[in-house]
């Protein structure tokens, strides 16, 4: 048997340069019978490796190169399931018993978990080889003897490698002598780090990234040669010379190994059940109880639906799973933690009765089969959003209840994409940092193997020359496309097992606290383990805070009982003034709402699904709106579609409709229909699409549907393709959208205040929310040492900026300030503040520049002087010093607070803009379609969503002193101005164009986009983005160095 028993995959994180697929493909070509993946201190590749190895008919052996105390490397291979579990326990102990990212296994643990494991002495960084290379032969002998005592002579091997490094011959002769003296065999590997020799360059670059060195630097971890690839039998024998027998020993060990990872063998953890009761019966009780509470009376339709769902749940043995989720939400409810189920779980009436979701699937006519079905026989996904502040508390409950060793966070693997690959490879290849940064910043979010095309075709790069060296860089980036860069923790995924997780994976400390397993979502699913998505949603926190704030004055307010047919709320939604509303605030949604004129919750739910790539690319949006407005007749390609599509004006909006159409037209079983939806949704291979399409056509014809009609229907649902929402998810989100719109309409100050307290949240930055406050007549009250608290706070008819917003101010300093004020009352003067609160000078400077003392001493520059040049008497003596201009004040506020409190920068530019024919956002509504227009503002989030035609359309907003202006940039203009939009946004953007169609919402079609430039230098101040903090520094420096009050020093003045 030909076996490579020491191979690293990309899951060795920057120490493996070939994908598992490429490794196995080459192994098969070389006639390799067995292969072991031995990544550094992890088993992250295990599931993918086993799945792929089965396809390539290669025996997979699960192992790891672990770090042992010393420190040194040791290769462990699992012989069977027990061995794999022990391997996972060892790796877990290495991680959990040591500081994070410094795993290390000690001898005690090796001894405790040695069963079913074969150990190899490892590479030159193994303890034995490294001691021999340092001529410490006696110590090497002792270490080897120790390993023999731990693993036994049959399960410990001295490893030699065919990697043609200087000194190998001497080292291996010594190892052979050592083995002979201890009765231990040599075993040959090639310490494989890449599949083929030509992949070495990529491995070398990855090593540079890992060691933070440049190619021209010397580093001990850089490999001398390109020999650590999957070698053929002949190449191995040639390199090993007369020690080739060690290669046969590798084959013998491989023969002893049995695959130690059972895919699909996970099982569900058990909720504590009352004595003698089965999970199924207990679940039935809970569902019945919830149904009575939810509906009062259980109708026969409801009973039938629940019976049908519970029968499927029982047949698929998932009662335990449902009870687990029920238990989690029960805990949240008991603790008053706001939550809501999202996703397809809302298709289930049982989930609604268990209080997992808030969508009444029965009355909405939602399909349970979209959620789970006998044909699919897969564990369904249940995702729940929790108030972000308490989500970890819920996770802790799950850990405590089901066992620390049975519950862990799910891992994610950050992969190389275009920007990261160019940045990191470029740095290693010694490109000038500025050039690389500019290139990476300009790149769109594309895969790393798409950079060459992007640079060739995208207008952002026009005029830039990328020569051969850059082509090398682009190709190096392409080589690592999709490779895992480093492990992380999934936002909300946790895995729960009914037995210790070590049977499946190893655990380590998560950066966010708790433990994280070494498998990602796909790995967990393939193993058949239970995964729950317990997501933290800041919107929930903002809602909770808003409700609490409203209840101070209106104790009877009940968010869960707000009227779902409130005309004021629908009026707000239809106005498009929905900045801050959950899921309805993007420019596309705001434009849609102005045309949709929502009058019911159903309209809002439809909105959720309409502004999605699927419906947009499937040309669903315009027909939907035209039919809704009565401008186009509702038509159905086949009469059987009318009951399915009637509620969505004859267009396919929801994933459930795809299932129903396939059932009605082609007689698909629910499982077949769901397969159709999944093939389309996941954009799998064209062959798979063609297969299921052909199946659809045959079945439709058999049912008497004409060829043309069947083809038309297939085209419609195929056009819908990916990225569509399921109705259940749209319903769950739509409810939140409506209710947050209700809060914004009836309690705008409370709601916007809460949104500002939970940034980052939603679509817009803080300063845009502040502008929205002002547009609504809510004052954004300035920072004030006597009034600002730890959070934004509703105060009279405004919202007070908190002290915590001051960048660089330590949390403890903020608390001290507020506590001192509460203890001894308001600060009467600047000297009073200095006497009572001890702050570092930088913190005081920031407070001054942000305007915190304006109420007690309004001259910020004089205060700065007093701070930096004290001892010249009373600060009031400096009142003659010319204060900062309004532009300078706003500039400081923007940089220090992230918003403006003294006004808006466009106010100071308005005269200059007005002189040049620019109008403000208020005036837009008076313009007619097609009218030429000039506007300017702070550009917000230019983005390029997918379009039906495939052509590029850019959407962005401009924020001015009165609100937002939405701008659309079509491809021709985009090609001309791409560098302005995506090559580093200017602080203020000027847009010239024409008013778009009123029917499509109030938007400007741009023709020219340019950074703002004042007509004449000095006529208006300039503003800059918060990132340019050095400008603040220059202001402070000017104050420090000037003998007399310095002149204003902002750029442009």
């Amino acid at each position, binding site marked *: 048997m030909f076996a490579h028993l020491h191979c690293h995959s990309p899951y060795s994180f920057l120490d493996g340069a070939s994908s598992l697929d490429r490794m196995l493909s080459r192994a098969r070509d070389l006639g390799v019978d067995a292969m072991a993946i031995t990544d550094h201190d992890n088993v992250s590749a295990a599931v993918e490796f086993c799945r792929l190895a089965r396809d390539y008919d290669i025996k997979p052996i699960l192992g790891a190169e672990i770090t042992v105390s010393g420190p040194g490397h040791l290769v462990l291979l699992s012989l069977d399931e027990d061995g794999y579990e022990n391997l996972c326990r060892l790796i877990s102990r290495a991680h959990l018993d040591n500081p994070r990212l410094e795993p290390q296994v000690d001898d005690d643990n090796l001894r405790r978990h040695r069963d079913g494991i074969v150990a190899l002495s490892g590479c030159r960084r193994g303890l034995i080889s490294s001691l021999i290379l340092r001529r410490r032969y006696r110590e090497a002998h002792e270490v080897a003897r120790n390993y023999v005592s731990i693993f036994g002579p049959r399960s410990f091997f001295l490893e030699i490698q065919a990697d043609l490094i200087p*000194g190998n011959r001497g080292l291996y002769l010594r190892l052979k002598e050592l083995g002979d003296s201890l009765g231990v065999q040599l075993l040959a590997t090639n310490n494989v780090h890449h599949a083929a020799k030509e992949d070495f360059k990529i491995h*070398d670059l990855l090593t540079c990234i890992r060691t933070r060195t440049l190619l021209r630097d010397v580093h001990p971890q850089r490999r001398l040669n*390109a020999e650590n690839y999957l070698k053929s039998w002949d190449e191995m024998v040639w390199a090993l010379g007369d020690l080739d027998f060690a290669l046969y020993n590798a084959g013998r060990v491989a023969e002893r190994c049995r695959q130690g990872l059972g895919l699909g063998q996970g099982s569900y953890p058990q909720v504590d059940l009352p004595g003698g009761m089965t999970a199924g019966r207990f679940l039935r009780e809970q569902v019945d109880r919830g149904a009575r509470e939810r509906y009062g009376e259980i109708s026969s339709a409801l009973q039938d639906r629940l019976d049908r769902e519970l029968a499927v749940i029982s047949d698929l043995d998932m009662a335990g799973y449902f009870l687990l989720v029920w238990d989690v939400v029960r805990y949240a409810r008991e603790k008053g933690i706001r939550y809501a189920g999202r996703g397809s779980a809302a298709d289930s009436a049982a989930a609604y009765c268990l209080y997992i979701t808030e969508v009444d699937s029965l009355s909405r006519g939602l399909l349970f089969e979209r959620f789970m079905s006998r044909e699919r026989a897969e564990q369904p996904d249940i995702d729940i959003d929790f108030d972000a502040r308490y989500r970890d508390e819920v996770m802790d409950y799950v850990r405590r209840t089901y066992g620390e060793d049975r519950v862990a966070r799910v891992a994610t693997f950050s992969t190389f994409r275009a920007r990261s690959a160019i940045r990191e490879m470029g740095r290693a290849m010694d490109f000038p940092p500025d050039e690389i940064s500019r290139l990476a910043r300009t790149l769109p979010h594309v895969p790393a193997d798409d950079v060459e095309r992007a640079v060739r075709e995208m207008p952002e790069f026009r005029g830039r020359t990328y020569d051969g060296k850059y082509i090398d860089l682009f190709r190096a980036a392409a080589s690592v496309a999709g490779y895992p860069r480093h492990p992380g923790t999934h936002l909300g995924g946790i895995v729960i097992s009914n037995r210790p997780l070590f049977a499946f994976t190893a655990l380590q400390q998560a950066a966010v606290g708790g433990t994280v397993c070494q498998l990602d979502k796909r790995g967990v699913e393939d193993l058949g383990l239970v995964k729950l998505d317990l997501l933290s949603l800041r919107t929930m926190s903002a809602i909770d805070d808003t409700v609490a704030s409203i209840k101070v004055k209106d104790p009877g307010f009940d968010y869960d009982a707000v009227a779902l047919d409130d005309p004021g709320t629908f009026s707000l939604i239809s106005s498009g003034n929905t900045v801050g509303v959950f899921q309805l605030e993007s420019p596309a949604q705001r434009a849609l709402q102005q045309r949709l004129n929502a009058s019911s919750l159903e309209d809002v739910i439809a909105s959720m699904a309409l502004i999605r790539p699927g419906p947009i690319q499937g040309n669903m949006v315009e027909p939907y709106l035209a039919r809704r407005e009565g401008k186009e007749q509702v038509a159905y390609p086949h009469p059987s579609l009318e009951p399915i599509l009637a509620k969505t004006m004859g267009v396919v909006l929801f994933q459930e409709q795809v299932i129903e159409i396939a059932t009605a037209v082609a007689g698909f079983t629910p499982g077949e229909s769901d397969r159709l939806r999944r093939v389309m949704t996941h954009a799998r291979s064209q062959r798979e699409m063609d297969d299921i399409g052909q199946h659809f056509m045959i079945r439709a014809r058999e049912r008497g549907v004409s060829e043309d009609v069947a083809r038309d229907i297939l085209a419609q649902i195929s056009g819908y393709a990916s990225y569509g929402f399921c109705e259940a998810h749209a319903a769950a989100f739509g409810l939140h959208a409506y209710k947050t719109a209700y809060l914004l309409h009836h309690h705008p100050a409370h709601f916007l205040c809460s949104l500002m307290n939970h940034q980052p949240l939603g679509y817009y930055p803080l300063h845009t929310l502040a502008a929205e406050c002002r547009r609504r007549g809510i004052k954004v009250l300035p920072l004030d040492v006597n009034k600002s608290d730890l959070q934004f706070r509703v105060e009279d008819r405004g919202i007070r900026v908190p002290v915590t917003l001051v960048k660089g101010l330590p949390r403890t300093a903020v608390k001290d300030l507020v506590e001192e004020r509460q203890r001894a009352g308001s600060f009467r003067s600047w000297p009073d503040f200095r006497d009572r609160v001890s702050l570092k000078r930088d913190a005081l400077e920031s407070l001054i520049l942000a305007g915190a003392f304006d109420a007690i001493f309004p001259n910020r520059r004089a205060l700065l002087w007093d701070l930096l040049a004290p001892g010249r008497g009373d600060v009031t003596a400096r009142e003659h010093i010319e204060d900062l201009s309004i532009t300078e004040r706003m500039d400081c506020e923007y940089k220090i607070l992230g918003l403006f409190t003294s006004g808006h920068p466009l106010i100071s530019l308005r005269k200059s803009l007005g002189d040049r024919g620019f109008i403000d956002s208020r005036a837009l509504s008076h313009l007619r379609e097609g009218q030429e227009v000039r506007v300017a503002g702070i550009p917000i989030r230019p983005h390029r969503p997918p379009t039906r035609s495939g052509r590029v359309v850019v959407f962005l907003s401009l924020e001015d002193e009165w609100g937002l202006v939405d701008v659309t940039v079509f491809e021709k203009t985009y090609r001309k101005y791409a560098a302005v939009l995506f090559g580093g946004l200017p602080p203020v953007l000027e847009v010239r164009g024409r008013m778009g169609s009123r029917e499509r919402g109030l938007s400007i079609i741009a023709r020219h986009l340019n950074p703002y430039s004042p007509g004449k230098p000095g006529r208006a101040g300039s503003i800059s983005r918060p990132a340019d903090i050095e400008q603040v520094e220059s202001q402070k420096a000017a104050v420090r160095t000037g003998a007399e009050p310095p002149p204003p020093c902002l750029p442009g003045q």
Partner: protein
Amino acid sequence: MIKEIQVRIDEEGNPRGFFHNGGYWRIREIIDTWRDTGQWWEGEAEKIFFRVTVLPVRGEGVPALCEIYADVDGDHWVLYLIYD
């Protein structure tokens, strides 16, 4: 001590001896072999090194220890190092 040399090789491509200082030096033993990719990013070719003991074919003498290398892609041989 880097000097281009002419080398005789066996069927497997291993060096048997080389010409140096007007004489032919027979390789008595290959002590070690390794490969070195060098500065590949500068276009440098991969090299295969041999640490060998050699004896002059004519005349008596003690074996000398030296290192020679060849570019992997060609037959360009270099005497890289002679140990004193």
